[in-house]
C-alpha cells in the first residue's frame, strides 16, 4: 500500500519537527542566559581595562604581558562548540583559523582547544594541539576559566619562543549575526595613543591623573591588575562564543523545523492524492465489473 508508507513518512517528519522545535526553544533560552552573563561581566571588564590604561599611560609601567616579544611561535586558542547541529558556527571558526595560518606561514602555530570541535578544527588545519578543554560546564565557572587562563599563561611563560597569544572566537553581534574572528590576546593591547589624545584634550584631568598614588607600589598594583584583566578578557571571549553558538543553533533548528513542516505539507498532498487515486480506482473497478455483468 502506498498510502501506508506515506503515512509512516509523515509521522517521522512530524516527530523530527517536534524535536527541532524543542531544541530551538532550549537554545533560545541558553542564548539569552549567555548574553545576560556576558553583559553582567562587561562592567568588570571595562573597569579593569580603564585601570590598566591609567596605570600604563601615566606611570609607563611594564609587565611581561604588556611587552611585545620576539619569537617564531604563536599560541592559538581556538574556541568552538562541544556539540554539532549549529549551522556554520564551527565552520566559520575553522575558516578563520585556516586564513590565520596562511597569513603567518613563517611562524610555528600551536593550539589550545576549547570545545571538542576545536580539536577537529586544529587537526584539519594541521596544527599541533598542546591542550584541550572539552569537559567544561554549560556557562563556564570561574574556576574553569582560571584553569584555561593558567594553561595559556604557563605555556606562554615557559617558552620564550612564543611571540604572542591569539584567540580564534566568534564575536556576538546580535541574535542574527555573529562574526568569527582572530583577536590578539597577549601581549595585551592598551590603546595608549587614543588614551593620550583624550588626556591632552582634558588638561585638567591630566593634572589630576598625575596625583594618583599607589600602595604599596606601582609595580605590585600592576602585577595584580594584569591577571584580572586577562581573566575577564578570556571570560568575555568564551561567553561571546557561547552566545554565538546558541544563536547559531537557534537559526539552524528554526530552518530544520521550517523544512520539516514544508516536507510534511508536501507529504500530506501526496498522501491525499494517493488516497484519492485508490478510491477512484476502486470505483472504476466496481463500475467496470457491474457493466461487464449486465
Amino acid at each position: 500500500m502506498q498510502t501506508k508508507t506515506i503515512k509512516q513518512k509523515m509521522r517521522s517528519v512530524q516527530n523530527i519537527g517536534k524535536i527541532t522545535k524543542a531544541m530551538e526553544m532550549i537554545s533560545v533560552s541558553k542564548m539569552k542566559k549567555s548574553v545576560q552573563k556576558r553583559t553582567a561581566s562587561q562592567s568588570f571588564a571595562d573597569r579593569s581595562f580603564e585601570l590598566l590604561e591609567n596605570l600604563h599611560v601615566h606611570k609607563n609601567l611594564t609587565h611581561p604581558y604588556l611587552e611585545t616579544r620576539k619569537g617564531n611561535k604563536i599560541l592559538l586558542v581556538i574556541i568552538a562548540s562541544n556539540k554539532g547541529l549549529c549551522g556554520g558556527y564551527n565552520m566559520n571558526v575553522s575558516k578563520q583559523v585556516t586564513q590565520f595560518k596562511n597569513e603567518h606561514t613563517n611562524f610555528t602555530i600551536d593550539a589550545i582547544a576549547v570545545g571538542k570541535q576545536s580539536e577537529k578544527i586544529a587537526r584539519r588545519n594541521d596544527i599541533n594541539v598542546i591542550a584541550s578543554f572539552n569537559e567544561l560546564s554549560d556557562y563556564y565557572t570561574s574556576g574553569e576559566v582560571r584553569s584555561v587562563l593558567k594553561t595559556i599563561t604557563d605555556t606562554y611563560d615557559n617558552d620564550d619562543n612564543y611571540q604572542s597569544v591569539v584567540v580564534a572566537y566568534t564575536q556576538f553581534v546580535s541574535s542574527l549575526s555573529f562574526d568569527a574572528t582572530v583577536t590578539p590576546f597577549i601581549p595585551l593591547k592598551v590603546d595608549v595613543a587614543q588614551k593620550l589624545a583624550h588626556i591632552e584634550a582634558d588638561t585638567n584631568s591630566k593634572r589630576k591623573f598625575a596625583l594618583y598614588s599607589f600602595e604599596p607600589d606601582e609595580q605590585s598594583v600592576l602585577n595584580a591588575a594584569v591577571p584580572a584583566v586577562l581573566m575577564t578578557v578570556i571570560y568575555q571571549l568564551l561567553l561571546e562564543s557561547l552566545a554565538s553558538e546558541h544563536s547559531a543553533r537557534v537559526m539552524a533548528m528554526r530552518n530544520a523545523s521550517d523544512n520539516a513542516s514544508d516536507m510534511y505539507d508536501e507529504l500530506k498532498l501526496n498522501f491525499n492524492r494517493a488516497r484519492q487515486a485508490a478510491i477512484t480506482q476502486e470505483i472504476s473497478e466496481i463500475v467496470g465489473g457491474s457493466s461487464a455483468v449486465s
Partner: protein
Amino acid sequence: MSDKQLQLTVATPLAEVYKEMVDQITVTTANGEITILPDHVPLVVPLDLGQVMVKKGNHEEFLSIEGGILEVRHTHDVVILSNRADNVSKLDIQTAEDAYQRAKDLMQEKLDPNETEYAALEKKMAYELNKVKIASRRGQRR
C-alpha cells in the same frame, strides 16, 4: 557630613555586585584598614580577603570580598574589582555558617591537595568563613 558623596562600584567577573552613592568606605588592604572619604587622593591599592564597610548617613552596609583591587578616581568614583564579592548586610549568621559548613564538607570530600579543585575549594571555604565573621561582628554591633 558634606554633601559630597562617592560613587562606589563593586564589580566581579560574574556581576556588578554593588553600585550606589555612599559617604564613606572602609576596606582592608595588605597593610591594614583604610577609610575613603569624598575628595580622597586618587589611589590604587590591592585588597585582602575581608570586609568592605560602607556608610550612607547613619546607615551601614557590609560587603564581603575575596581580595581584589581598589581604585579611587579623581571623579569621586571608587571602584573595587574582586573575584568574588557579596553584600552581606542582610545575611544572618546562620545562613553564613551553613554555607561555610557546606564548603568545608565539600573540601573534606576532596582530600587530595594535588587536585586542582582543592585550591579553589580552599579559597571558597576561606571566603565563606569571612562572611560568617562579618555577619557575626555586625551582630555584636547592634
